[in-house]
């Protein structure tokens, strides 16, 4: 089934090709192996290649083969994302639970945590490590959890999301990493759930919806048919929420506080950086555009003026 796809999806909407699907199939089988089964590559590899006789070992599966087949059919025929099939996404050193209604965290977004790590290493004296951070529009809680794990013992993170499903999934993920004392999850739009005592933020990170409304229909089927539009659609030019976050950062960050936002690419990054420099009265400084590993200028980061 995976082989028959060839490069059809790739040509159609930049979707997965056979090689990628084969690897996903290996992972699907790895993930369905029962407790105590060695999840070694060779084992999964030989199990997945139909007709292979190299491994005749009997393995215990947590799901019956019919269910696996049904799931895989959904992957190919409905283009249901692999991460929803197995219910998780491997992101940085985390394994995060995901389900329909929550955006699957992207590899690009991992870099935001690197930026935060760098800032914490350099600005230790500023106490950012022990400060209050916000991950706005947290989705599965990826950024909030990763940052929660690198803050000092007094550091805290508030994760907000408008979607009740996202809030529930984030709460579950936070519990899995035993960070209930460190990461607080609140339902609401962007800064709204923050209380008055929480307006002096040491840092703000966000991967808000940034895709222009017109582009939504043409997205890869995995995204457009299955992922929540709430987490993708950024209005006419895709900048509606990003601008709101910029203005919020200018007033909510404490002096010296750090921010990093993900954007749609070069155009948005440049516009945003220009806006911060010219429209916010110098309240945000040290503004830099950073590229993702594919070379696309993806992030805007900087500090609140002291």
């Amino acid at each position, binding site marked *: 089934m995976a082989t028959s796809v060839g490069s059809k999806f*790739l040509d159609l909407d*930049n979707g*997965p090709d056979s090689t*990628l699907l084969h*690897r*996903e199939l290996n*992972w699907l089988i790895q993930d369905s192996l029962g407790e105590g089964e060695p999840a*070694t*590559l*060779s084992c999964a*590899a*030989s199990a997945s*290649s139909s007709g*292979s006789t*190299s491994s005749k070992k009997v393995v215990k599966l947590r799901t019956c083969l019919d269910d696996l087949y049904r799931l895989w059919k959904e992957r190919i025929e409905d283009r249901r*994302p*692999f*991460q929803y099939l197995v219910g998780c996404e*491997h*992101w*940085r*050193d*985390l394994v995060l639970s995901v389900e329909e209604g929550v*955006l*699957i965290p*992207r*590899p*690009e977004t*991992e870099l935001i945590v690197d930026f935060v790590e760098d800032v914490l290493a350099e600005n230790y004296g500023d106490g950012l490590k022990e400060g209050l951070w916000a991950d706005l529009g947290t989705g599965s809680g990826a950024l909030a959890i990763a940052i929660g794990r690198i803050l000092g013992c007094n550091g805290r993170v508030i994760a907000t999301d408008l979607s009740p499903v996202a809030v529930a999934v984030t709460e579950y993920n936070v519990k899995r990493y035993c960070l209930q004392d460190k990461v607080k999850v609140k339902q609401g739009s962007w800064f709204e759930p923050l209380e008055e005592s929480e307006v002096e933020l040491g840092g703000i990170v966000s*991967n808000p*919806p*940034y*895709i222009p409304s017109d*582009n939504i229909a043409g*997205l*890869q089927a*995995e*995204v457009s048919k299955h*992922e929540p539009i709430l*987490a*993708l659609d950024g209005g006419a030019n895709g900048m509606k929420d990003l601008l709101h976050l910029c203005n919020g950062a200018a007033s909510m960050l404490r002096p010296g506080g750090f921010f990093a936002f*993900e*954007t*749609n*690419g070069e155009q948005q990054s440049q516009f945003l950086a220009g806006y911060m420099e010219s429209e916010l009265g110098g309240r945000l400084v040290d503004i830099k555009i950073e590229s*993702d*590993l*594919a*070379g*696309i200028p*993806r992030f805007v980061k900087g500090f609140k003026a002291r």
Partner: protein
Amino acid sequence: MADRGSLLRRILRSINQQLPRPTVAEFRWRTRPSVIRPRPASCISSLFLHWRQYSTELQHHMSPELMKLMEQRLSAIENRSDHLHQIVNQPEASPEEYSRANKELRKLRDVAELITDLRAKQKEINDLKSVIADCQDDKDMKEMASEELDQAMAEEKRLQYLLLKHLLPKDDADERDCILEVRAGTGGEEASLFAMEIFKMYEKYSQRSGWKFEVIDVAQSDLKGYKEASASISGVGVYGKLKFESGIHRVQRVPVTEKSGRLHTSAVSVAILPQADQVDVQLRNEDLKIDTYRSGGSGGQHANTTDSAVRITHIPTGITVTIQDERSQHKNKSKALKVLCARLYEMERSRLHSIRSQFRSEQIGSGDRSERIRTYNFPQGRVTDHRVGITSHSIDDMLEGESLDTFIDALLLQQEMDAISSFVSSE
């Protein structure tokens, strides 16, 4: 390093499998038949005389030349140590002088203590000898003194041996973890299948040794063999034990892919690299280019992909490392960085090594990966290591990671002898 007794016994056992029982004294010559590879072994043999077996314990006698050399080194260390003590005890020594002397003393402490013990033992021996000379008439006394003298002399030998080991050059990398890289060479699918078996041999050997074996990346061939595979092995003394595995491993057998039953010879190359971190290799972020090599597209929220492959290019050397087996980009990146550091570290080591080896003859463990080091002959059920000339007739145990110690121990012993010979020739 394994204790010498068990090490030798194991080697002897393996030799006994293939040769008419040699006497123990013959052992050294049998381990390196000159037919296979003539080596300048004679210089070592005359220095490191012979091995003798006392009950189950093995002891050795050092040649007078080696003893003389060691004695010179020991007095030099004693003088240095006295000199440093003087500095430390001088009230007028500057703080820099003081701390430098102190630091050097700390480094010399272990060996200085051994020398003190040795001197005490040697004095005891002299005293006992004069007791024996003085009481020729008192038979009981003489007997008692001779008994003590024997013990003291045995102890002296032990201390001398420990000191010798201290004086021999050590490879600082021996205690490090390592990266194992296995590549199928000539022989197509058959080579890939054998690469997989070799890879798994090290996996099993690592488990047996209580080490942690983590697969880094595997590139499979059509028949599910390994075109290339790498792993990170960590534990106590990993590199020191595995370093001699680097080189070409040759296999002779009728491949499963061969219908006519013809014997094939294929080759697999193995590299063992000591692990290093970014500090060891002075890696600077600006020297690195890290990218995904995915085909275009807008990325970010536009794309849902499970492809998180990462490629790291070290700009000054042009080395690239690509890792795609992990499910997150972050993990692929850190694995790629680990492999890159190990490769850079190895490059620096072999550069230093080639400078050094201009001054002395080629030794084992040169890390020359084009050297054919071992042959696995399936029809005859044997594995031969060409460097020490040892053959094991249990090829199945070998691939199960069981008999590998036969070779490793012999190679370690060889290394020690080479070290002794260069210790002598460097004088």
